[in-house]
């Protein structure tokens, strides 16, 4: 009964991490409920809408939290830390993909994946306009995509993004500016004023 137990939903992320390191299962459940879905969506966006891979990445990240909670620095924000871990995992995957691409016979490795991603997008998005946005976001280069996703979809501040990406705030602003301009330009064909 919640009356007699610690109310984990009132704990901060950092307090939950401390409780997890002491073996508090309910703290782990709470943290998972807070971040699992958001991280899955982040991985989906960053990993070419690959659901299986994204699930695996979420699993690996939380397994890391369980097995090595000491990796988390309690003086830092958990949100920043977890997204920086997620971002590093994506970067490693990009490197692996590059290696695979170099060893491939010239076919695009993500051809099949991007094909299924269209189906996923069709399920999620109702209009061509939104579909085009998602497509253009996916096509954006990784460093701009991650900055834009973290800022506008995950809701991190510029300072937090700078910590996650380990870059200065000016660079974050610059990347955000570029990404926003690129996406706005790519949606030009859907602009009602342009089509008048």
């Amino acid at each position, binding site marked *: 009964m919640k009356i007699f137990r610690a109310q984990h939903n009132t704990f901060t992320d950092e307090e939950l991490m401390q409780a997890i390191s002491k073996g508090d299962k309910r703290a*782990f459940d709470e943290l998972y409920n807070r971040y699992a*879905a958001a991280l899955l969506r982040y991985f989906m966006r960053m990993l070419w809408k690959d659901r299986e891979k994204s*699930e695996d990445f979420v699993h690996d990240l939380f397994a890391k939290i369980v097995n090595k909670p000491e990796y988390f620095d309690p003086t830092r924000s958990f949100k920043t830390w977890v997204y920086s871990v997620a971002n590093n995992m994506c970067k490693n995957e990009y490197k692996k993909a590059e290696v695979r691409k170099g060893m491939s016979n010239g076919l695009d490795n993500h051809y099949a994946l991007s094909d299924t991603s269209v189906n996923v997008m069709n399920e999620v998005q109702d209009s061509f306009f939104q579909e085009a946005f998602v497509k253009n976001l996916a096509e954006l280069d990784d460093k701009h995509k991650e900055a834009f996703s973290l800022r506008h*979809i995950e809701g991190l501040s510029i300072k937090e993004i700078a910590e996650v990406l380990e870059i200065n705030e000016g660079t974050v602003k610059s990347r955000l500016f570029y990404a*926003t301009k690129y996406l706005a330009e790519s949606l030009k064909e*859907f602009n009602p*004023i*342009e089509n008048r």
Partner: protein
Amino acid sequence: MEKELVNTVLEKEFNELSSNERIALNDYCTSEEEFEQLKMVFQSVESLKKSETIQPRIETKNSLDDIFAQKHGQKPRAIWYNSALVVLYPTEKAFVKRPLVQIAAVALLLLLAYPVVNSTKIQDQSETQLAEVKVEKENVKPTTAKTSSPEVTSTLVEPAIEPTVQTRTAEMEALSEDMMVAAPEMAFEEYRSEPEAVFAAVPAIAERPDGIYTGSSTVTFSQPASAQPQVFDLLTSTF
């Protein structure tokens, strides 16, 4: 871009922008066309956030639970009520919205209401019983009137035993004479065997020769008056 600026783009039209807002947005858009494109980007972001309802699979969580149990040496207990509690006591819902709490509240209300309902029921029952008793009484009255008639009473009332006036008849006199004759032949002990048969008690106190038993004696027996000649004399003299 700051959150406030994004909200401004989403909520306002280009013509509605203040000069300060136009200066803030100057890097992103200078014309209405560019402003509309920017608005479309943020509208897409909002709709993307709303449409993204994807959740991790349950297998992922189960696997992580196993890893947690291995790490901290506590296997989640497979108890039947755990699955029931998920339905009856979902922790994600507000306390008052949990089915178990609602059921308990209803049960408590019923428990509290039972004595009240029951007391009124008992009252009703007693009232009806009283009414029935009254009706019965009303129905019984005429019959008692009937029974009070001489015919019925004669059937109900046990026949009164008429006090028999014992008169000393000739037969009795003859019998007593026989007894008086036979008395000396009878052994004293024979009467002891029948202590119940009390005819005339031996006076327990010598001063009471009239045969009245006072009850202080432990052994009581009777014997014919002829066995005590002085008493016999007294009796005969009395009659």
